[in-house]
Structures are given as structure tokens and as C-alpha cells.
């Protein structure tokens, strides 16, 4: 795992080096971008996966410029987010988290689902044997759910942490960033994966909705723009700049 991460990091670094030389924002044709956790489109391997209200669609993008439609898979009612991790897809709906295997990438197969106790909106991130999902109630408040996914066929909701107004989330090593709209970003220590410990709260006069962890930078989707943070110290994001209006 660590080696894999290192390889990815190295790849990124070499991209930066390359793009610096050329200065033309040209990317290698096979590199994949990163999405926030609120997305309905994701790319993993040579496939684009998209979700609509109730179904997952698969497109082969081996030829990047010409997607080939492969399959549609019925998932469940009111699905909203999709997150890829290794050979799994985590799909969040109003009421449940669904886990699909992409062992056959053209026809994802359902492994399991876990239903929530509260209805809400729910992006998901996963790493190793844990998945985190925020569920925001439509009438305020919400929770951060921790699922033990060691046995992928029976995810266990092992912990629930109360939140103020949770939206998207992201992970960097043992830091979990949870956007809380007007309440900024909460940073949890997840060294003990199933018991996140609140380390820091960062209010920065913006409404935070989602994050992307990009090496040592946290890119934050805020109301009306984007903020960049330095996360060299993973628990203490330092605001670098904001693009707004």
C-alpha cells in the first residue's frame, strides 16, 4: 500500500516537473484527475463510472476521446455520490451505502449495503478497512459514520460522531477533513480508524462544501469559489489563497 502511494506521489511529482518545463498545462494522456467526494462521475482505471438517480453506468475510456458505453446497473433509490477505492466502488444514497466490486470493471457487482439510521445526503471516503460517510439531515445536524469494512460483505457501522452541518470529506494519511459549511472544516485524527478524534476546527470566513487532497495541498470547494490550503502539517491546514467571484 505504502509503495503504491509512493509511486503515485512520484508520478505526480514528475507531472509537475514536466508541466513546469512546458508551461502549457498539457497532461500525459493516461493520467487521471481527482474528484471531490460529492461527485457523481469518477474515473478509475480505463473506466468512467457515472451515477444518476438510481443507476450506475459504465463507460470504457481506454480511448480517452471516445467513451464506449458498456453497462447500466440498478443500484437503489436517490443515489448521490460515488467514490472509488482499489477495486471497489462506494455509492452513497439518501438511506444507504452500497459497495460494488469492479473485479470485472465493465459490470460492477454488488457486494453489500449498509443502511443509515437517519436520512440525508452522504458522500463517502474509504481507506484500508474503514469507510467514512457523512449524513446531513435535511433539518440540520448530521453525523460522521464509521464503517468497519474488513469483511466487505457485511460493513459494520461501528461509530457515529455528531456533526453540525456536514458535507464533503477527504483523507490525508491519518487526517480526515470534514466540511461543515459555515462552520468551516473539522480535522479528525484517524490513527485509530474507528474512533476519529477531533484535532482541530478551522473556520475561515467561507462556507466549505468539499475537499480534494492533492499531495500537500487541500483544495476546498467553498461557496462562490475555491480555497487552497497547505497541509504539510496534516492537522493544521494553512490557508494559502482563495479564488472567489
Amino acid at each position, binding site marked *: 500500500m505504502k509503495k503504491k502511494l509512493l509511486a503515485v506521489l512520484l508520478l505526480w511529482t514528475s507531472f509537475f516537473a514536466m508541466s513546469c518545463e512546458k508551461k502549457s*498545462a498539457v497532461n500525459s494522456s493516461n493520467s*487521471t484527475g481527482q474528484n471531490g467526494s460529492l461527485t457523481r462521475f469518477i474515473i478509475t482505471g480505463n473506466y468512467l463510472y457515472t451515477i444518476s438517480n438510481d443507476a450506475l453506468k459504465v463507460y470504457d475510456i481506454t480511448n480517452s476521446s471516445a467513451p464506449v458505453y458498456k453497462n447500466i446497473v440498478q443500484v437503489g433509490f436517490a443515489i448521490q455520490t460515488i467514490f472509488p477505492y482499489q477495486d471497489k466502488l462506494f455509492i452513497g444514497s439518501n438511506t444507504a451505502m452500497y459497495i460494488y466490486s469492479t473485479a470485472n470493471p465493465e459490470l460492477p457487482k454488488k457486494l453489500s449495503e449498509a443502511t443509515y439510521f437517519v436520512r440525508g445526503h452522504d458522500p463517502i471516503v474509504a481507506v484500508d478497512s474503514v469507510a467514512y460517510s457523512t449524513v446531513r439531515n435535511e433539518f440540520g445536524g448530521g453525523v460522521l459514520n464509521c464503517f468497519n469494512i474488513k469483511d466487505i460483505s457485511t460493513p459494520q457501522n461501528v461509530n457515529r460522531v455528531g456533526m453540525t452541518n456536514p458535507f464533503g470529506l477527504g483523507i490525508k494519511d491519518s487526517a480526515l477533513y470534514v466540511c461543515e459549511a459555515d462552520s468551516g472544516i473539522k480535522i479528525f485524527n484517524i490513527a485509530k480508524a474507528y474512533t476519529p478524534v477531533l484535532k482541530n476546527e478551522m473556520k475561515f470566513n467561507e462556507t466549505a462544501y468539499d475537499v480534494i487532497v492533492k499531495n500537500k495541498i487541500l483544495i476546498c*470547494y467553498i461557496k462562490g469559489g475555491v480555497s487552497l490550503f497547505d497541509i504539510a502539517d496534516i492537522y493544521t491546514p494553512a490557508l494559502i489563497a482563495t479564488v472567489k467571484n
Partner: protein
Amino acid sequence: MKHVFLTFSLILLLLSCSDKNNSLGKVDAYVPVYANMHDATQISWQSPQAIVNGGKIATIGNRVYQVEADKGIHVIDISTLAAPVKVGFIKNSLCRELSLKGNYIYTNNLTDLVVLDVSNANTVTVSSRISNAFPDLALQYPPATNCYFVCADPEKGIVIEWKLQQVDNPKCSR
């Protein structure tokens, strides 16, 4: 006498309330903004625009892309982290989602899946289009519930926006 008049008026008012066609008067209602198919499927590179209703983000290399709900995609250059700068705007009707691979943006245009090639500076070209991949994304209804709206008329074109305005007796509600 005065009371009789008031009671009479009240009864009249009540009566008029029960008359569905004339009851509402001027109220806040969503009004569809139409575009013709040709215009709504045109995707073009434009100079940077204000981020008004910024949405989901994605990143690759030294760029961050942010959806402007239903309007397009802001292109932000972050090569200098301390001074990120908007370098352009990709006009794209009903844009909601995006994902990135190499020099390609996968996004929706109306309800179609489109692949946009952004390998050349300040240019965008549509590499491919798969029709009606996301029927859910059509703007059939306004972005709110418990509201009045002017019923969309497909004859007039594709709805690309809903604007809240004062309308005399809107016929639809949800």
C-alpha cells in the same frame, strides 16, 4: 353598516379565493428560460467569468475546474499556489458534473455525456458526445419545491435556467 360591508367584502374575497383561475394574482414563480437546441449544444471557451453559483470541483496537473451550476466550468490555474488565477470559462449548458483524464474533461451538456479536449490553450473542442446519457439532468422543474412556476413548453425549446419572477397566476406548482 360598516360591518355589513366588511363581511360582504370578506365573503367576496373568500369566493374569489375558491376560483382557481383568478385567485393567485401576482406571486413569486419560477419562469423557464429557453434555448434552441443548436445554441444549447454549443460548447465554447470564454474569458474568465465571475463564480456565482460555483459547484463541484476536480483537479489535474496544475489546474482546478469548478462547475458553475447549469452554465459551464471555471478553469483555474494553480501553478502559483499563492496566486491561483481563473484563466477561462467553458460555456456548457446544464453543466453539473465533471471528471478528468489527461487533456480530456468528461462532463454533461444538457443530458448528453460529452468529452471535451482542452489540450490547446484557450480552446475547447468536443471530441465525442453520447446522447441522453443522463435524462435525470433535464431541467424539467424549477430548483425548489412548494413553489409556483410557469409550465415549461417543449415547443419553445430546451429549458436552460429557471428565474424567480413576479408572475400573474402561474399555472403550475409543485
